[in-house]
């Protein structure tokens, strides 16, 4: 065990930094810049039962300290992922987290069943994608919906199950508790916040989908608050994300209660961000003579 390694939902990570689903593809593009083995893990692009073409462009808009996306879960489908991507990723000496989404219960069940038969390390269940019409976020906004999908996935797999929560809710802690009660091994949060930008010249929304998910540094304080609330409400481990772009952000998120961290939009600003954050954490633990597990949840609230 090194000072930066963490055990999360029974899985060992050499460090807690994981590129966030949808921002890193399946790793190929970034492998030219650094070895994937440097990363704690990879949460791969969200996968659905069948190929999804995604939404019409434009799918990207910049915002103050962040961005909106309305990619709409473009992906080749679970069979293609298992056949074409997973075997390669498994040779990369990093934890592979599948990220799945469905438009109904059957789709979640079918994908989770297929993944259970593979050597993927963990399943992250997206019940919070704001960019697809049916399903997705619909399940993530009520305790019943979140519980129902957790129950279904849990019943078909013995892999660690991590439920990915939506911030577009009244009480994220209640949703997390509903997932925990149905046997989730962990929760991850936050997915993107629903947002909108309008081109004042054309009076058209910039995104063809009109609305999209906000991420990047702008959402960081919201994410820290939600991680803190959830970590105080459940006993299962929390994977924190939303606007993390420096090692200091990662430490802050861990103090709030996260024991694993995902990094998304920061990769677009600086493709080396995950590696720089890992280096920063290594220096931090050495300087302070601590291991990262010592700081999880150690914020001292007033």
């Amino acid at each position: 065990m090194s000072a930066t390694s963490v055990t999360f939902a029974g899985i060992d990570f050499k460090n807690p930094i994981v590129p966030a689903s949808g921002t890193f593809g399946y790793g190929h593009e970034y492998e030219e810049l650094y070895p994937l083995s440097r990363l704690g893990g990879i949460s791969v692009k969200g996968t659905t039962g069948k190929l999804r073409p995604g939404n019409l462009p434009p799918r990207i808009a910049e915002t103050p300290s962040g961005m909106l996306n309305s990619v709409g879960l473009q992906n080749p489908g679970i069979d293609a992922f298992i056949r074409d991507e997973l075997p390669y990723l498994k040779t990369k000496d990093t934890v592979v987290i599948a990220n799945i989404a469905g438009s109904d219960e059957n789709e979640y069940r079918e994908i989770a069943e297929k993944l259970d038969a593979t050597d993927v390390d963990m399943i992250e269940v997206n019940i919070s994608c704001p960019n697809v019409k049916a399903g997705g976020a619909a399940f993530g906004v009520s305790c019943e919906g979140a519980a129902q999908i957790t129950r279904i996935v849990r019943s078909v797999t013995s892999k660690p199950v991590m439920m990915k929560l939506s911030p577009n809710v009244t009480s994220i802690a209640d949703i997390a508790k509903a997932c925990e009660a149905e046997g989730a091994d962990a929760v991850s949060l936050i997915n993107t916040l629903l947002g909108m930008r309008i081109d004042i010249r054309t009076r058209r929304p910039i995104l063809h989908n009109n609305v999209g998910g906000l991420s990047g540094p702008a959402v960081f304080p919201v994410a820290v608050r939600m991680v803190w609330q959830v970590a105080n409400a459940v006993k299962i481990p929390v994977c924190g994300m939303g606007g993390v772009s420096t090692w200091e952000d990662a430490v802050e998120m861990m103090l709030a209660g996260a024991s694993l961290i995902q990094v998304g939009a920061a990769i677009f600003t600086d493709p080396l961000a995950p590696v720089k954050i890992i280096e920063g954490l290594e220096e931090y633990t050495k300087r302070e003579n601590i291991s990262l597990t010592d700081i999880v949840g150690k914020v001292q609230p007033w």
Partner: protein
Amino acid sequence: MKYACLAPIIRKTNIAKGIWDMEILCPDAAREAVPGQFVDILAEGYTLRRPISICGIDRDKGTLRIVFEVRGKGTAVIAQKEVGSSLDIIAPLGHGFDLLDTDKRAVIIGGGIGTPPMVPLAQHYGANASVIFGFRDARAVILKEDIERTGADMILCTDDGTAGRKGFVTDALDEVLKALRPDIIYACGPMVMLRRIAERAAKDDIRCQISLEERMACGVGACLGCACVTKQDDKTVYKHVCKNGPVFDAKEVVFA
């Protein structure tokens, strides 16, 4: 192979109102860059990088040339950078133009700020190229001397006739196609222009490659943000401008 690096600015020139011409030192990227590819540039203080086409490749000096217009806040930040400071870049990115043998005949069309990527193409074909480029007015004309130096035939058009001839590049294209049949047509510029050129090329059954723009996040093909609608065997397929493009065969692009 792509590289992320800090590329020192070794020359910076203001070539028209709000349009900057920079030469940046990045030997690894310059060694591998091909015409039609682009550089993704960090605008400090902004989340998303700005994609800018490669306008010149000097392998001996290890430099790339970029020419860009200040459109909004990010390009304004990049334009403020001075010689001696560095641009934080990822390059070379994307799929460039297919280059035929230099003895083939090419028509190369650039509209406005779509002209920069056409310069290295004109250099490749030299006297076997006909370059048509169009601007709003005389004050917006850029890269004229660069194109003259390639030895290509050149037709300069402006919307108001204050430089070159009055009219659109598509009119000039009709005229050129009456006189010769090129092996390939290349174009970069506004969508309406690209659409007309694509239609014309299809009508005459001439191969045509166009360079497209779309809003990007990662710039490398990972986020699937920069979708472009294409057709393959009559099926609609979303391709990605930063990875499959920015250069596409015109006949596969579905114009909105």
